[in-house]
């Protein structure tokens, strides 16, 4: 760890120091963003392949045979190949996109600036955390290329399937081990990041930037870092034990007396449920890690573009803290059907319903922010509004799943898949789009194209509803998840039109993302020059040039006089007051 003073007063020189092994949190934030962008394109491709196979399982595609001579002999995807694509889709999306972009991408770039700091507390550690994440991604992708291919046990990797080795299925050899190693490396990277985020937020705030004057984005980044700190440490331990079961002959998770592929296994005495408890103790906070920063961005944008303070700042902070805290107490709702004690299932259920309350508070407050406002429909704002709609849709299905009585039917059906995709696969992604359109001017000194932006928004918004809402209907009909195809069951025949519809909607929505990519890369080169504060927003990043100098505030130390949401203050000469503006009243 090096202190900020070690590098603060000398701008980095040379390409490697400036762009590769940079200590500048802004460069590191951009590196994380592009790592996430690369990963989401892989994840998206995998999902399109999956959706194709689900509705056309017998159609020969010569490209498949070229890519996977063993897994897709004759151009037809084998079930094990399908399951490995599914496993990697989930894993790459959850870790390398949802955990990375909102927190390590935007958070790294904007946390120090929004609190008035020159950089993160430990810039060298920050750089190491990015490159560690990079190595984790390389190891994960390597799983595709080893003998047996990528693992097929799902992103949740339940033993014994994930612990027995190749005897339980193709891909369960080296592929599964690389998967665990990659995740373990990712855990280290996350823990390094958590150290920086927490220390920076607690100790490096500028004068006058009290905790209750911080923008809500900073609160979400702080709580997300704490969730990651506690969660990833446990995942790391679980991964170590799983690898030992696979490679060292231990039996943490593997019980006695197993007969797999006609081979009696030597393990004895372990518990598959132990893995589930450890994994979900991490796994549930993980989904809040994926969504909280997006909620912070939504709050920020809804206020800024309604020209009104956020409705109920204190309640919003309380809700973030409550979601973070309760997020550690509800992991058992992923295990209602697992064979664990049904009494604990009830306890987890009540707590799960409790966590719906702060989420509801946030939703009411977002609508309350819009109410009586003066809404400016920039692309960033469109994505924030879309976020609210999608969050409502995705959150509502949680009310069903949080009841073990109803989970007796819905567990492991498409209802679950619809629920978590709505929240993570869409709302969280929209949060990232919103952040991109909002902060792009600051990061790159140019504006993105609003026409392309709005076109991308509308088509994506309709597209994602078209893809993921039908999953709930499939769930009600009892369609199980993680099935390579649906040809073996009579009751699923009438559901195929839904699957076809979803597949076509997926093609459409995936294609629409090209508009975003064009907009992003074209605007970096050729977008209109951005001013210091194109959105007339109040937080500290809008007081410095676009893009900012290497030490953010040009050697000055900002002083903060008010909260982050002073829009439309009666009596002020503009309809917004910057946080560092001493002259206006009221200050609080």
């Amino acid at each position, binding site marked *: 760890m090096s202190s900020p003073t070690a590098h603060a007063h000398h701008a980095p020189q040379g390409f490697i120091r400036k762009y590769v092994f940079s200590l500048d949190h802004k460069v590191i934030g951009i590196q994380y963003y592009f790592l996430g962008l690369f990963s989401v394109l892989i994840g998206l491709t995998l999902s399109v392949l999956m959706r194709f196979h689900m509705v056309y399982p017998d159609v020969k595609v010569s490209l498949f045979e070229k890519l996977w001579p063993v897994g897709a002999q004759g151009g037809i995807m084998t079930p094990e190949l399908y399951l490995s694509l599914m496993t990697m889709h989930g894993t790459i999306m959850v870790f390398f996109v949802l955990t990375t972009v909102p927190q390590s991408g935007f958070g790294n770039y904007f946390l120090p600036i929004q609190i008035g700091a020159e950089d993160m507390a430990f810039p060298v550690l920050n750089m190491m955390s990015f490159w560690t994440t990079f190595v984790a991604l390389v190891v994960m992708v390597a799983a595709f290329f080893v003998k047996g291919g990528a693992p097929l046990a799902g992103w949740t990797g339940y033993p014994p399937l994930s612990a027995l080795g190749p005897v339980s299925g193709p891909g369960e050899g080296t592929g599964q081990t690389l998967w665990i190693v990659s995740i373990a490396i990712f855990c280290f990277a996350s823990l390094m990041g958590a150290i920086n985020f927490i220390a920076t937020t607690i100790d490096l705030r500028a004068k006058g930037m009290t905790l209750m004057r911080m923008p809500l984005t900073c609160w979400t980044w702080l709580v997300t870092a704490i969730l990651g700190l506690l969660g990833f440490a446990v995942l790391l331990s679980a991964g170590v034990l799983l690898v030992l079961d696979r490679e060292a002959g231990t039996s943490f998770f593997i019980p006695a007396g197993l007969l797999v592929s006609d081979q009696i296994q030597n393990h004895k005495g372990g*518990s598959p449920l132990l893995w589930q408890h450890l994994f979900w103790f991490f796994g549930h906070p993980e989904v809040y890690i994926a969504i909280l920063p997006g909620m912070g961005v939504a709050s920020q944008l809804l206020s800024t573009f309604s020209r009104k303070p956020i409705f109920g700042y204190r309640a919003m902070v309380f809700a973030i803290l409550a979601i973070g805290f309760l997020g550690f107490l509800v992991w058992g709702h992923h295990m209602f059907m697992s064979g664990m004690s049904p009494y604990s299932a009830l306890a987890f259920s009540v707590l799960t319903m*409790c966590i719906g309350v702060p989420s509801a508070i946030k939703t009411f407050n977002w609508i309350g922010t819009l109410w009586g406002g003066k809404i400016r429909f920039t692309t960033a704002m469109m994505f924030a509004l879309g976020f609210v709609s999608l969050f409502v849709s995705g959150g509502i299905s949680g009310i069903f799943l949080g009841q073990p009585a*109803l989970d007796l039917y819905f567990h492991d059906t498409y209802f679950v898949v619809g629920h978590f995709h709505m929240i993570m696969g869409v709302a969280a992604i929209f949060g990232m789009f919103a952040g991109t359109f909002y902060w792009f001017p600051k990061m790159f000194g140019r504006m993105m194209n609003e026409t392309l932006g709005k076109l991308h928004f509308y088509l994506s918004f309709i597209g994602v509803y078209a893809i993921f809402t039908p999953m709930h209907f499939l769930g009600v009909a009892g369609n199980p998840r993680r099935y390579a195809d649906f040809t073996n069951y009579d009751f699923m025949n009438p559901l195929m039109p839904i699957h076809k519809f979803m597949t076509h909607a997926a093609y459409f929505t995936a294609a629409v993302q090209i508009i975003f990519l064009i907009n992003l890369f074209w605007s970096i080169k050729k977008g209109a020059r951005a001013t210091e504060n194109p959105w007339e927003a109040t937080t500290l990043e809008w007081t410095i040039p676009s893009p900012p100098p290497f030490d953010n505030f040009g050697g000055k130390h900002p002083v903060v006089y008010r909260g982050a949401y002073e829009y439309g203050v009666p009596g002020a000469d503009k309809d917004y007051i910057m946080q560092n503006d001493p002259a206006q009243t009221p200050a609080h």
Partner: protein
Amino acid sequence: MLLAPIIWVLTVIICYIFAAHTWWFPPPISAHGMDYDAQFTRTLVITGVIFFVAQFALGYAIIKFRDNGGRASYTHGNNKMEALWTSATAVLFIGLVLMGTKIWASVHFTEAPADAMPIEVLGKQFAWNFRYPGPDAKFGHTDIHMVNDQGGNPFGIDSKDPASKDDITSGSLRVPAGKPIKLILHSQDVIHNFFVRELRLKQDIVPGMEIPFHFQADTPGTYEVPCSELCGLGHHQMRTTLIVLPPADFDKWMKEQLAAK
């Protein structure tokens, strides 16, 4: 703005499809199934109202409060409203889960009735096997070394054990209608899950654990059983059927099986 009508149209379409039961549960075949459907409907109505109102309010706000030159109203919130909608949400959500408690309790907190028919379920990659204890009501001893799928002994039943003489094994699950059944779930290798849509019941089958699970099916028929926990490359093919027979027909089947031994 265009977003508002889009949100409204999507909301109406979604609510309609749910209300019209366009794609729906199969009819329930048990009392538990009917209780389940009632709780589902309760939840659907409450969440449906919340969904509808929230999306409509969002759309309404988008239209009504768009920037047309006026001033935004400067307010930091309203504590009374916060308290009101927070308590309402808490009461609704927790109320819902408490209402469903009876259903959960009837499945998991109560033991199977004393006269329940025990049937052993064995899940393995990628097939289902069922075993009836026969007239002696005792399951014969099994040994993993004796498992022989090709040779017709998936359970590894020890034929030397006298209790195994009248054990009946089957690839599908036949039960008499209107009688309580107690399943004893085993897995030989990885986690599987036994799911019958019409019963509105499912349960993970965990290796190393012996999990009891009871139900009563009242309507005769044949119902598909899809494995519902990822178990490997054949997960999507691991299928069996629950065949609910009128008690007389079930007895007849049982007699035929015993005679064939």
